[in-house]
């Protein structure tokens, strides 16, 4: 970890109108790290992701990626990033081939390499026979595989995954988990957002917990465990201030009487 950090965030603040969603966020992320980014709904997770992917160009503070500033050079930065969005938005009247060809061309990739790569990737994901079918007939898991392919099509240095496992079956989940570890060994940086604590616990080598716009825990799973409890789930609920276990369930049971 003697390298320069690949992602540097310094004093990042973000307001929606008067509401502050990110409060003085500062972070250094190094190449090859798998970051597990967790936090309750509305904590500022997706805002962070939007700023890192260049979707929200207005913020206060500094975001430096691979030595380039997000405010000055967003297009060059976007070339380094692969992004799998949470809400599975896709042009589903297209076929996977057409869609991925489109995405690849936006990255400026050339024809023969691109279509060869698409075919190899889709086959590896088990969609080899569906390359030329329209995606409006696809299941959620199949669409998610196409989105994952779109996320790595440009061989990005940084991969930002937002709930990448939604809709995938058990085998595909194992595939993606293995893939994340392999990619990090190749030196890729992975920024993994999820609500599924057990997966985050297993794949990430550094966990960031955000609550109300502030990072309240930062470290390996092991180091977080020593301070608090034994599963990430428990750590999460303690740090985000959930009430004493049992209080909420009591209230629910009582309401039924």
């Amino acid at each position, binding site marked *: 970890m003697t390298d320069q950090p690949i992602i540097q965030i310094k004093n990042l603040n973000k307001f929606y109108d008067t509401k502050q*969603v990110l409060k003085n966020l500062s972070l250094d992320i190094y190449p090859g790290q798998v970051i597990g980014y967790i936090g309750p709904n509305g904590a500022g997770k997706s805002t962070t992701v939007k700023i890192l992917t260049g979707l929200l160009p207005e913020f206060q503070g500094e975001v430096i990626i691979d030595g380039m500033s997000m405010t000055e050079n967003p297009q060059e930065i976007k070339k380094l990033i692969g*992004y799998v969005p949470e809400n599975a938005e896709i042009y589903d009247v297209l076929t996977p081939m057409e869609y991925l060809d489109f995405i690849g*061309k936006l990255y400026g990739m050339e024809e023969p390499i691109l279509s060869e790569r698409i075919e190899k990737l889709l086959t590896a994901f088990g969609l080899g026979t569906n390359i030329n079918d329209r995606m409006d007939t696809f299941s959620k898991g199949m669409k998610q595989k196409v989105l994952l392919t779109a996320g790595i099509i440009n061989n990005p240095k940084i991969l930002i995954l937002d709930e990448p496992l939604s809709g995938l079956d058990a085998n595909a989940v194992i595939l993606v988990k293995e893939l994340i570890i392999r990619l990090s060994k190749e030196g890729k940086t992975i920024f993994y957002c999820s609500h599924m604590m057990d997966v985050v616990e297993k794949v990430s080598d550094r966990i960031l917990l955000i609550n109300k716009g502030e990072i309240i825990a930062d470290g390996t799973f092991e180091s977080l465990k020593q301070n608090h409890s034994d599963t990430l789930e428990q750590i999460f609920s303690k740090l985000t201030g959930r009430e004493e276990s049992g209080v909420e369930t009591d209230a629910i049971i009582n309401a039924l009487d």
Partner: protein
Amino acid sequence: MDKILLKLVSLLNPMLQKTGVNKDQLNEILRIKLLMDNRRPKTIFGNKKNKSGKPPKSIFSNIMVVILGLMMSFLLFISDRPLAGQTLYFSMFMVMMALTLISDFTTVLIDTRDQFIILPRPVNDRTVAMARFLHVTLYITQIALLQGLPGILLVFFVDGWAAMPVFFIQVVEATLLSVLLVNTVYFILIKLVSPQKFKDIISYVQIAFSVCIFAVYYLVPKLINVSSLKHIDLLSHRWVSFLPPVWIASLNEIVLHAGRANLTILVMAVTGLIFPVIGIWFVAKVLAPGFNRSLAIVSSADGNSNASASTKKQYKTDFRDKLANLVAPDPIENAGFKITWKLAARTREFKMKVFPAFAYVPIYFLYFAFNGKGQSITEKYETMKGNASYIFLIYLSTFVLSTILQNVSQSAKYKSAWVYYALPIDQPGKILAGMYKAIIVLYFIPYCLVLSIATVIIWGPMTINDILLSFCISTIYGMLMALFMVKGLPFSKPIMVKAGGGKMIVSFVILGLIAALGFGHRFLIKWETLIWILIIPMILINWIMFIQYKKQSWDAIELADTDK
């Protein structure tokens, strides 16, 4: 066709590159967007669901556009001065273009998917904005050329050969101006309101538009003497020169009738040519950049989630809740009542289909009532007041009832209706009963009340018994429709284009029956007491049928196909 258009656009490349647009990306975005358009069914004139693999860009809808263009081009012959005729033609032309743009492109202009698909890639804002603008323009150009074709040919008979190329330029000008106007309004609106509200506003504009066109089509010929347009001098009104269609028409005047043109017309013609260019620059430079940003904020979860629940919203029970409890005390019926009321009030496509019907009724009525020839408007009004045509008004309102009933069981989100099937409801007729009550109480009665007040004001209080009787007979119609035609639970079926053949016959039989009752009513109108008495059996019939409707079992309910 698309390839040719893309070639045409690439002619602009050198100019576009100078403004910071990436031409390869632009070309790629346009290509994929046009490809998607071809696979997406059109809304105007097109059939809603085209499941077959064929491109839905059907020849039929193209022919419809040409025919519409042909009808419009008769406006060119309306006046002996081309300026007036052309102004009318291009007003119509631009309205049609704007309508097409609004109905087909609401989804395109605010396609939130672009946020996650295009913007995370290394594409700059200007390329995206330009792609969006060119996409709209290309699409609309195809329609504009079809619509303008009859005009281009027929203008020959007005002004000779030379007018044809000029007219072509005018068509292009009108198209650009329409795109520009709609775009500007969109860009400004989206800066002011949230996309959700924005979509609502757009659909209200669409409703208002279609009602206006309907009204103009039926009523203007009845109210205005067409021959007086023959010698109209538009420019005698100062404000006219600020209307874009006049600028377009001026081009013809200045080129082909230079002799009688004056300075004003010259200025207007030049404005018409320059305005689109300035407008495109304005859209690209000033309005477009903020557009993506405001979309990004809205589609972000953190932006609108109310994590800090400091402002806890209290549900306010309004009079409609009390009404629901009053007319539908049974819990299941109450649920049916409330779900119908709330979904109907919040479902955009339902409102789009039903609300125009409310306006069509008085328009139809005036159309028939003002049928006298060669009279002035006041004379027509007096004739209308003199006869008992008001009965017709109430009976016409059954049109509203049948429109609601036909649409109330359909929804684009019909899959949410699984709750009805998952819950232990032994008598689904109760939900239907609640639904029917909601329609009558919340839509039909208030509407009839408004019509009745108007009737009493115009024709006098003597009409009250007739109103009541015709109201009862109208609800019999509604009840029959519900019994025989509406077998789906509220908002539980996918949207269908047309009912099957058997249903058509049933609905004609019902309509015939009601027409017979209506004429019977008209026949008995002089015997006031008899009308009062007749109200009682009609209420009874309603009541008996309603009990029957409430007893519907699951066997009678039409379920949506749940296999897909």
